C-alpha cells in the first residue's frame, strides 16, 4: 500500500532502473553476479541463498514432525531421524538465521550510514561465496552414505552441538561428522570475513555528521553482532579443529581413555554458543527497532537505552555459557554463578521490550504487514524470553534440560523472535531493493497463518517438556500423555509451511505486478529511503550530511512549538537534498571494480575439506586454488 508523500512525487520504476543501470557497467547479466562486489547484490544473494536453505531446513523439520505425529511410528529410521534433526538445527542456525542477518547487514549498513559500499567489497564477496559453498558442502553429506534414494543418508547425526565423545570415530564412523565439522568451519570463515568488514564499515565509513549516537539502531545491533561474531567464531574454530585432529589424525582431545574430558567440548562449544544466540537475535531486534518507529510515526523511545542495552547484552553474553551445562555436574558454585548471570541477562532484554512498547504508545500505528511482524516479534519473543528465565532457575532446569521444554524455548525465541523479525524486515525493505511493494493483503494472510502455526507448533512442546518428553527421540510410547500434543505440533508445522508458501506466492506476484514503491513508500526515517528504489549502484549521488538521528525524517518534517511534526512545505525538502534525479547521475563516482578472485579463493576451501575427507591429494589442489585466488586478489589493480 504505497502512500504518496506530501511534497514529493514517487520516482517511477523506469526512473529507478535507468538510474541503476546508467551508473555502472557490470550491473547487468548473469555473469556479473559471480564477480560482483556490490553490497546490494551480495546482500540479495545472501538472502536468497539463506531463504532456500530455510526451505530445506523446514522440509527437514516437517519430516521430523511427521515422524513424531503419533507414537511408535517408523516413517523414518532412527538414523534418518537423527540426521534430520541434526541437519535441521545446523541448517537453521548456520545457513538460515545467521546469513539472513548478514544479508540485511549487507543490504542496509552502507545505505543507512550514507556510504557507497562496505569497506572491503571483495572481502564481502568472498564471505558470500564461502558461505554458499560451505552450505552446499555440508549438504553434500546427504549423498555420501550409499544410495540416497534408498534412504541411506550420510549426513551427520550427532545433533547441532555435536557433543563429544559421541562425535568421535569410535561412536560415529562414516564421514557425516567430518562433513559437519569441516562445513561449519568453512561457514565460520564466512562469518568472520563479514564481521570484520561490517565493523570497519560502521566505524570508518559513516557519512559526515553521523556520529555513533546518530546511527540507526539497526546499525548499532549490527555492530554488536559483528563483534560477537569475530570473538565467538574463533572459539568454535578451535573446538572444531580439536575434533578434526581427533577424527582425522588420532589425537586425544575428547578421548576419555587417555584422560580427556568430553566437557572440554561443551565448554568451548557454549562459550561460542551463547554469544551465538544473540548473534541470531540482535539483527532481528535491530530490524524491529526500525520498523516500529516508522509505523508508529514516532521516534524510538529511549534510543540511548536501547543502544546501551544492546551493548550490555553483547558483553553479558560471554558470562552465561554454562547454563547449557547445568546437569553435567559442574558443582554448586558454578551452577549458582551461571544461574545468577543468566538471570541478569534478562534485564537488558526487558528494557528493550518496554522501550518498544513505549515507542508504540501514543503513536498513530499504521498496521501494515511489516508492523504486524514487528508486533508479533514482541508478543512471541517475550514468551520465549520468559521460558528462558524459567531455565535460569537452576534446579528446575534439571527437569527441563534436554526436554521439549528447551526445544519450545529456543523455537519461541528463534522463530517467534528471529524469524518474525526477519520476515518483518523483508516486507519492510523489499520495496527498497526491488522497486515493488509486497502485497499487503497476502502479507497479512502470511502473518496470521504463521502466527497461528507458530503457536500451534511450539506451545505444545512446552507442555510436552513438562510432561517429561526428552528431545531427540524418534519414537515414544503411547501411554505417557504425549500423543495429543505431538499431533497438534505436527499440524502446526504444516500451517507454518503453508504460510511460507503464501509468502513465496506473494513475492512472485508482487515482483510481477506489485505496486511501484517509489523512494519512500512508508514515509520512513532513515537514509536508505532518500534514494531511489532500487538504489543505484553507487547508492548516493552525493554523500548526505547528517544532522541528527533519523536525519531523513527531519528533512521531511519540522516540529511545531508543541512538539508536533509538520511537513516541510512541498518542494523545500527536495531542494535541500538529493532525491537522486538531479546531480551527477553517478558519473565520476568510482566504484570498486568487479572481481572473480573472491569466488576463486572461496572454491579452494571446500576443495581442501573434500581432500581431508576423501584423498589428501586434493589438499594441495585446494591450497593452490586458494593461493592463486588470494594472490590474484592482492595483486589485482584496484580501479582508480
Amino acid at each position, binding site marked *: 500500500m504505497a502512500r504518496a508523500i506530501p511534497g514529493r512525487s514517487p520516482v517511477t520504476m523506469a526512473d529507478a532502473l535507468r538510474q541503476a543501470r546508467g551508473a555502472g557497467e557490470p550491473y547487468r547479466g548473469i555473469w556479473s553476479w559471480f564477480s560482483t562486489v556490490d553490497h546490494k547484490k551480495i546482500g540479495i544473494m545472501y538472502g536468497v541463498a539463506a531463504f532456500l536453505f530455510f526451505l530445506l531446513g523446514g522440509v527437514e523439520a516437517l519430516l521430523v514432525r511427521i515422524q513424531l505425529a503419533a507414537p511408535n511410528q517408523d516413517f523414518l529410521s532412527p538414523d534418518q531421524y537423527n540426521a534430520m534433526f541434526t541437519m535441521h538445527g545446523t541448517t537453521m542456525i548456520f545457513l538460515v538465521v545467521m546469513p539472513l542477518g548478514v544479508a540485511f547487514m549487507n543490504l542496509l549498513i552502507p545505505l543507512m550510514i550514507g*556510504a*557507497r*559500499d*562496505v*569497506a*572491503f*567489497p*571483495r572481502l564481502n564477496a568472498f564471505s558470500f561465496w564461502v558461505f554458499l559453498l560451505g552450505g552446499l558442502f555440508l549438504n553434500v553429506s546427504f549423498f555420501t552414505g550409499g544410495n540416497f534414494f534408498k534412504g541411506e543418508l550420510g549426513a551427520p547425526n550427532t545433533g547441532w552441538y555435536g557433543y563429544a565423545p559421541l562425535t568421535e570415530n569410535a561412536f560415529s564412523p562414516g564421514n557425516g561428522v567430518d562433513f559437519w565439522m569441516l562445513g561449519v568451519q568453512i561457514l565460520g570463515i564466512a562469518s*568472520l570475513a563479514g*564481521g*570484520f*568488514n561490517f*565493523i*570497519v564499515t560502521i*566505524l*570508518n*565509513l*559513516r*557519512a*559526515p*555528521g*553521523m*556520529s555513533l549516537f546518530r546511527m540507526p539502531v539497526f546499525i548499532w545491533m549490527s555492530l554488536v553482532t559483528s563483534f560477537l561474531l*569475530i*570473538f565467538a*567464531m*574463533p*572459539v568454535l*574454530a*578451535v*573446538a572444531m*579443529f*580439536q575434533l578434526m*585432529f*581427533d577424527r582425522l*589424525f*588420532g*589425537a*586425544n*582431545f575428547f578421548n576419555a581413555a*587417555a*584422560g*580427556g*574430558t568430553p566437557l*572440554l567440548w561443551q565448554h*568451548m562449544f557454549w*562459550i561460542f554458543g551463547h554469544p551465538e544466540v544473540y548473534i541470531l537475535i540482535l539483527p532481528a531486534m535491530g530490524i524491529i527497532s526500525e520498523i516500529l518507529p516508522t509505523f508508529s510515526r514516532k521516534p524510538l523511545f529511549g534510543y540511548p537505552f536501547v543502544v546501551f542495552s544492546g551493548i550490555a547484552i553483547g558483553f553479558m553474553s560471554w558470562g552465561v555459557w554454562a547454563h547449557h551445562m547445568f546437569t553435567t555436574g559442574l558443582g554448586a558454585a558454578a551452577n549458582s554463578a551461571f544461574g545468577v548471570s543468566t538471570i541478569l541477562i534478562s534485564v537488558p532484554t526487558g528494557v528493550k521490550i518496554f522501550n518498544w512498547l513505549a515507542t508504540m504508545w501514543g503513536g498513530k500505528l499504521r498496521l501494515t504487514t511489516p508492523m504486524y511482524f514487528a508486533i508479533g516479534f514482541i508478543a512471541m519473543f517475550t514468551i520465549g524470553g520468559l521460558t528462558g528465565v524459567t531455565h535460569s532457575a537452576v534446579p528446575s532446569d534439571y527437569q527441563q534440560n534436554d526436554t521439549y521444554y528447551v526445544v519450545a524455548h529456543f523455537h519461541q525465541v528463534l522463530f517467534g523472535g528471529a524469524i518474525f523479525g526477519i520476515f518483518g524486515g523483508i516486507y519492510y525493505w523489499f520495496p527498497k531493493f526491488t522497486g515493488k511493494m509486497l502485497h499487503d493483503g497476502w502479507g497479512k494472510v502470511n502473518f496470521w497463518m504463521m502466527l497461528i502455526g507458530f503457536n500451534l507448533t511450539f506451545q505444545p512442546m512446552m507442555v510436552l517438556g513438562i510432561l517429561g518428553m526428552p528431545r531427540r527421540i524418534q519414537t515414544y510410547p503411547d501411554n505417557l500423555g504425549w500423543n495429543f500434543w505431538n499431533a497438534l505440533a505436527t499440524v502446526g508445522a504444516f500451517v507454518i509451511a503453508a504460510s511460507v508458501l503464501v509468502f513465496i506466492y506473494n513475492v512472485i506476484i508482487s515482483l510481477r505486478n506489485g505496486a511501484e514503491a517509489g523512494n519512500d513508500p512508508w514515509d520512513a526515517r532513515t537514509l536508505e529511503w532518500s534514494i531511489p528504489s532500487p538504489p543505484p549502484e553507487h547508492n548516493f549521488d552525493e*554523500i548526505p550530511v547528517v544532522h541528527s538521528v533519523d536525519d531523513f525524517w527531519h528533512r521531511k518534517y519540522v516540529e511545531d512549538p508543541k512538539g508536533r511534526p509538520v511537513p516541510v512545505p512541498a518542494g523545500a525538502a527536495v531542494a535541500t537534498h538529493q532525491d537522486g534525479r538531479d546531480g551527477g547521475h553517478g558519473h565520476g563516482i568510482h566504484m*570498486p571494480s568487479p572481481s572473480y578472485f573472491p569466488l576463486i579463493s572461496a572454491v579452494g576451501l571446500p576443495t581442501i575439506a573434500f581432500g581431508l575427507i576423501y584423498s589428501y591429494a586434493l589438499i594441495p589442489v585446494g591450497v593452490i586454488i586458494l593461493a592463486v585466488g588470494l*594472490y590474484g*586478489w*592482492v595483486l589485482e589493480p*584496484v580501479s582508480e
Partner: protein
Amino acid sequence: MAYAAPHTQPLETSTGVDNRKLLMWLFLGSEALFFGSLISAYLLYRNRNLTGPFPRELYDIPFTSVSSFILLMSSVSMVLALAAIQRGDIRRMRIWLVCTALLGILFLSGQAYEFTGFYDRGLSLRTNLFGSTFFVLTGFHGAHVSIGVIILLSVWVRSLQGKIKQSDSLTIELIGLYWHFVDIVWIVIFTLVYLLTGR
C-alpha cells in the same frame, strides 16, 4: 585492497584509523581468542595425562629459549624494515625483510627439530593428551609463522620487481602488526607452556 572513503569526511564519523589497519587489529583480536582457546585447552589438560612421555621429560628449555630469542629478534628486524620504508629507504627495507623472514625460518627449523626430537622420544599427536594439546597448539603457531614468512618473502619479491614504494609503508606496517602478534603469542606460549607448567 581497500575501497577508501571520500576524503571529505570529518574525523568524528571515522576512527581516523586506516580501514586496513583497523581490519588488522580486529583480525588480531579474533586471533587472540583463537590462541587463547588453544592455550586454555593445553592448561586444562596438563595434569590429566595418563601415560608418558610427560612435558618435563621432553622440554629442552635452553634450546627453546634460544629459538624464542631468535623469534624475538625477528620482531626487531621487522621494526627496522618498517622504519626503513617510512624513510623511503627501500633497499634497507628489503634487507630487513629478508632478515626477518630468515629469522622466522630459523625459528621454524628449530621447531621442526624440536618436533622430530619429541617424536623420536615417543611423543606424537596420538600418544597422550600432552602430545595432542602440545602439537596442535605449537603447530598452529608454527603455521602462523609460516604464513608470515610467505607474506614477507612475497613482499620481498615484489620489492625486487620495484613494485613497493614508500607510499606502501602501510602494507609493511600491517605485516609488522601481524608478525609482532605472532611473536607475542609465542612469548605467552613459552612462558605458560614451557616455563611455568613444563615441569
